[in-house]
């Protein structure tokens, strides 16, 4: 802690109260955004299906998710006989709590003064903010695994086994691409990240350009897989698993899973905006009081893209999922991490632009050349493996054709 001017004069009752209010506000933001997000997704998916989407409950149908949620809460809470009851009951909360807390480190931009106490529009600003994000996304997998395991049923178990492999695989990419951001900005603190991405014509300072766009794309793909959203939603493949890890859950417990899923979507979009798209910085100059507006706009765009992806791409096969993760994204992000660290070896001060790094520093160039070579080697190795598999497949196919 410590960057927030709120704590400059020590802790007293007013500070505690302000802190409490902030906690409640962040909590409410996440919950309301979940209600909003469910409708937003349904509306956008409907638009892409040339439909209207839900338009009956409330103005324009925007109260539909509230109605659905209310109905869900009043349904019977059923526990299967074979369930491991304590774990079964705890699993939804293990899933929910990290997701809800993750939003607390997202800076919404600027400061606000309440009763002579100036405070940042950010609940917590730890120096290890990004690590905290990675931790929460890593914890979510426990909720999935425990839910599937404790249900005492085959399909949820299969779903959670898939989920564990998938989430662990893509966490590597997530970590590696986040490391490029950390290298560029030179800090793990989210508020410093945002400050780093501000300045005149600030969109040129945003990290997705600074790191060379590809890490941003890799991060987005990885976080989609991490959330087990389409097209990586094998965890909830209805056709194969009749529902997924949350199959045996009903009523409130199921509502928590649903809440966690969409809260994760909103939080992770906010994280993408914070890490890669300048957070609350406007496209030309920093902040200027419009921080929260810019932040909301950017988050909405990212959410739209997530829904767009869901409306477009079919679900991957499991081997395709693993191939994409291990054979393509991990080598690529490793190579990119090395490229970025090559550039960074020139400048140890954060905030230097991508173009600045073309300054001549031979060790940096060595590192870049080495990483490009290594990356090419990785991809080549993957290609060779792929070809070998294909040759094998054609040979097998010929064998099955019978005598020539």
């Amino acid at each position: 802690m410590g960057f927030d001017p709120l704590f400059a004069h020590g802790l007293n009752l007013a500070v505690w109260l302000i802190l409490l209010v902030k906690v409640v506000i962040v909590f409410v933001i996440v919950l309301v955004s979940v209600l909003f997000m469910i409708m937003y997704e349904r509306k956008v998916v409907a638009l892409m299906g040339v439909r209207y989407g839900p338009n009956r409950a409330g103005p324009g149908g925007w109260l539909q998710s509230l109605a659905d949620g209310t109905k869900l809460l009043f349904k019977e809470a059923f526990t299967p006989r074979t369930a491991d009851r304590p774990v079964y009951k705890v699993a939804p909360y293990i899933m929910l709590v990290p997701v809800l807390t993750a939003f607390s480190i997202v800076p919404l931009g600027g400061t606000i003064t309440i009763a002579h106490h100036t405070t940042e529009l950010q609940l917590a600003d730890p120096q290890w903010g990004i690590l905290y994000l990675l931790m929460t996304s890593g914890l979510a997998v426990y909720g999935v695994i425990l839910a599937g395991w404790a249900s005492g049923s085959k399909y949820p178990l299969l779903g959670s086994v898939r989920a564990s492999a998938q989430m662990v695989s893509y966490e590597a990419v997530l970590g590696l691409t986040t490391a490029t951001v950390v290298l560029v900005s030179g800090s793990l603190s989210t508020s410093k990240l945002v400050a780093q991405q501000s300045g005149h014509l600030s969109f040129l300072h945003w990290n997705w350009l600074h790191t060379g766009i590809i890490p941003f794309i890799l991060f987005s793909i990885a976080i989609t897989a991490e959330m087990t959203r389409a097209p990586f939603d094998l965890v909830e493949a209805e056709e194969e698993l009749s529902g997924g890890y949350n199959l045996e859950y009903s009523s409130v417990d199921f509502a928590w899973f649903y809440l966690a899923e969409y809260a994760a979507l909103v939080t992770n979009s906010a994280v993408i905006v914070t890490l890669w798209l300048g957070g609350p910085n406007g496209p030309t100059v920093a902040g200027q009081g419009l921080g929260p507006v810019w932040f909301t706009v950017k988050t909405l765009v990212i959410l739209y893209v997530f829904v767009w992806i869901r409306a477009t791409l079919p679900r991957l096969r499991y081997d395709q999922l693993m191939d994409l993760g291990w054979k393509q994204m991990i080598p690529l992000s490793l190579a990119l991490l090395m490229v970025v660290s090559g550039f960074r070896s020139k400048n140890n001060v954060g905030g230097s632009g991508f173009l600045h790094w073309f300054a001549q520093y031979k060790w940096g160039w060595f590192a870049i050349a080495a990483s490009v070579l290594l990356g090419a080697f990785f991809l080549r190795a993957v290609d060779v493996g792929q070809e070998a598999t294909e040759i094998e497949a054609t040979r097998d196919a010929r064998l099955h054709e019978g005598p020539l």
Partner: protein
Amino acid sequence: MRLTDLLPRVLRGFVVTGKLPLKPKVTVQYPEEKRPKPERFHGRHVLNRYEDGMEKCIGCELCAGVCPARCIYVRGADNPPDNPVSPGERYGFVYEINFLRCIHCDMCVEACPTEAITESKMFEFSFANREDAIYTKAELLVDDEGLPQQLPWEDWKPGDDLNTSAWVRATAPGGAAAMEGRQLWSAELGYGVRPAQRGQSDPTSPDYPADTDVSLRETLAPALKGVNVNGKRPERGGGR
């Protein structure tokens, strides 16, 4: 498949879904706007009557017998001599259709020897419990004008009684030698008496059907003089 092969295809997919929100919506906002129903639409049943108000049902239970869903329950009874319900010896004392089971196959309509049961184009059922799904004679019987009763929850549109599934005569065509077996579609619910079906092969023959699409009422208009029947189809708008 390699990433390089995959990417252009994926991007093309995004272009497709990206354009779709700009297109006009295909959704029909159901209770406010309704699509026209197709000809011979199989909706809920009606029990028809003759011009003089007599019921056509004779309680023979053929409909119940042929029903594949076993959703019809009929009990015939002898007509009271002083106040007969139907022209024959017996009448449908109890007539019930369970619309939770009915599959609207129209086999009851085909089986009926007197054109007593036909299907309207109304399909808007609304039950709050299983008992309400069983329609009795009180709901099924047509009114004095020969038109289906408009039940409180049914949304009636003009033309719902036109071009209905109706009754296709499956019985002998009255011995006409020119009859070729092509059955004629009456296209209406089955109010009143239908003239005997005539032959079809020779257009010059007097037996050749004049115009099968003409309403039965209009065909019968000359013969029905003196009978209290409205010559015109009454206007029954969408109102309740």
